[in-house]
């Protein structure tokens, strides 16, 4: 496998293209995904390649987009709907939470709902309270759903392919600020199984469990702390549900310290779940209190200095690590 660098958006597009070529049941639907190529350009070119039947521009009907995906999946298709922003997931919560997530269980295992909902999330583009949220943790609370949040082009491609082949509903959270990030992606086919974390940096003094964009902030923090002689391990769960508890607990047992970095607001968040797992299963290994670095518990403000203040940055991660080592 030769190596080359492509962007996160290109990696996602490649995964879509490969899975559509491989399996004709796979199709895309969403707002502006066809002619326009997606609001962030992710699906550019796919309409020309696969035609209107399999790359469907839809009306502004999020509930309908997911409802139709659920129905099509129930009869054997493998839809990959795109919801334009994570902030629009509340409009289709009913179909995701009460229908997609529950049908397999509720019908005694008779029906499969293999849909992969691609959705960009995150702050940083000065688009205020209704276009900047990270809502991944909500879906972790729903049995029956899988939740994926890749932080690199490599992970994005392998995880999306695995998600599309998974027989369950998957919410695939892309981060808006990562679309242009470049990284190595091999030419050949590969899959990354759902439910497996990745060690993004090895270390021995503290563990940072970071998700999505915060993986990069954590890596920057780790690099800076290395200069002070603090060795930080950075773990990216990659799938928030099912969660690779073994990888997290193993790292915590090694370092004795746990910091969780997430972009969403703090209360009731994903970090709370990771902290609870560590407290339940590795309290004996912890040498210091667990720390969470998260957004403040407020809607995302518009004004640039306020937005930058609310969202966690490298500095806040460094301070959290220093406070426990």
């Amino acid at each position, binding site marked *: 496998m030769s190596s080359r660098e492509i962007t996160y958006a290109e990696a996602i597009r490649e995964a879509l293209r490969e899975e559509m070529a491989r399996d004709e049941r796979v199709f895309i639907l969403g*707002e*502006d995904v*066809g*002619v*326009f*190529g997606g*609001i962030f350009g992710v699906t550019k070119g796919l309409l020309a390649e696969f035609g209107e039947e399999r790359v469907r*521009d*839809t*009306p*502004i*009907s*999020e*509930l309908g987009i997911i409802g139709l995906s659920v129905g099509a999946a129930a009869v054997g298709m493998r839809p990959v709907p795109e919801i334009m922003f994570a*902030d*629009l997931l509340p*409009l289709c919560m009913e179909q995701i939470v009460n229908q997609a997530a529950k049908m397999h269980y509720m019908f005694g295992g008779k029906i499969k709902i293999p849909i992969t909902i691609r959705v960009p999330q995150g702050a940083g*583009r*000065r*688009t*205020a*309270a*209704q*276009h900047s949220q990270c809502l991944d943790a909500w879906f972790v609370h729903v049995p029956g759903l899988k939740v994926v949040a890749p932080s690199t082009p490599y992970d994005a491609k392998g995880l999306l392919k695995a998600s599309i082949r998974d027989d369950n509903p998957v919410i695939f959270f892309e981060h808006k600020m990562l679309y242009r990030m470049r990284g190595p992606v091999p030419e050949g086919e590969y899959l990354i199984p759902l439910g497996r974390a990745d060690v993004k940096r090895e270390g021995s003094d503290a563990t940072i469990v970071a998700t999505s964009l915060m993986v990069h902030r954590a890596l920057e923090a780790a690099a800076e702390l290395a200069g002070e002689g603090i060795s930080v391990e950075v773990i990216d769960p990659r799938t928030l549900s099912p969660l690779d508890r073994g990888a997290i607990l193993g790292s915590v047992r090694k370092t004795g310290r746990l910091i969780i970095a997430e972009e969403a607001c703090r209360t009731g968040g994903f970090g709370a779940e990771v902290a609870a797992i560590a407290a339940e299963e590795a309290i004996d290994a912890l040498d210091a209190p667990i720390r969470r670095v998260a957004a*403040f*518990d*407020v*809607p995302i*403000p*518009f*004004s*640039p*200095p*306020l937005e930058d*203040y*609310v969202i966690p940055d490298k500095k806040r991660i460094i301070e959290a690590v220093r406070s426990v080592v």
Partner: protein
Amino acid sequence: MELDREKLLEMYRKMVTIRRFEEKVAELNARGVFPGLAHLYIGEEAVAVGACSALRADDLITSTHRGHGHCIAKGCDLKPMMAELLGRYTGYCKGKGGSMHICDFDRGILGANGIVGSNIPIAAGAALGIKMMRQDRVVLCFFGDGASNGGSFHEGLNFASIWKLPVVFVCEHNMYAISMPTKKSTSVANIADRASAYGMPGEVVDGQDVLAVYEAARRAVARARRGDGPSLLECKTYRFRGHHEGDPGRGTTYRSREEMELWEARCPIRLFKAKLAQMGILDEELAKGIEEEVSRAIEEAVEFAMASPFPPLESALEDVYA
């Protein structure tokens, strides 16, 4: 409401203000001074001004992501508006809302909304509140063609109809929802056709003709105020810019230059200016005076905004709860 000379000139002034304001936003955006997304109203001025001119000062509007024109037409102040757009503490929402979330309760602007269609049931709800408080105010709800395909539209109109609420639904049919043409997204040729499903009058209006919009809105507002219930007005219009300022080629990935030119030839301001000239109300000199007055007001708003501080960081933590 009679349209006397003064009122007609006021309508013209407002249309020019919207146009120049938006051109200024485009310029600030190009210079990198404007944070976030700018969804401009250029080309659609007759809709906001025609509709809001049929309202009383104490009537209410709900607005959208493309809301600058609605707010100016309803009479908001340019200074706190521009300050809000630039994220300053002196802005309408203390810098927390930005372009998509202008709110001026005192002028009857119930708030602009970034979620397409969500303002429709909210408008019906405001009308319900007004009715329950035995007031005679009216709510006017702006939304796009794209919004009319979402559940909020259908639920909002049904509620407004069964409870005879004092609300006027104004659809700005600018032919596209981002790249999606109405003819591909919408089950009927005219969005006004949907009114019949909800037992209310629906009317197609030339959205480039401010007086036509005014007339239709005046009738619908009168009906709402009388207690006879809601109406749906569909104003056919066109956005002259892209969906937002980052839309490549002002939207040429999904629409033709010929189509754009056809619509640009029906510039609502130029049409109204010719009409006023014909009526002997506006001549070149007066028009020039209005232009100068408007540019001055916009320059002052920009100066005010640029001289205003960004919000203090702690303010990010305020206003979460009442």
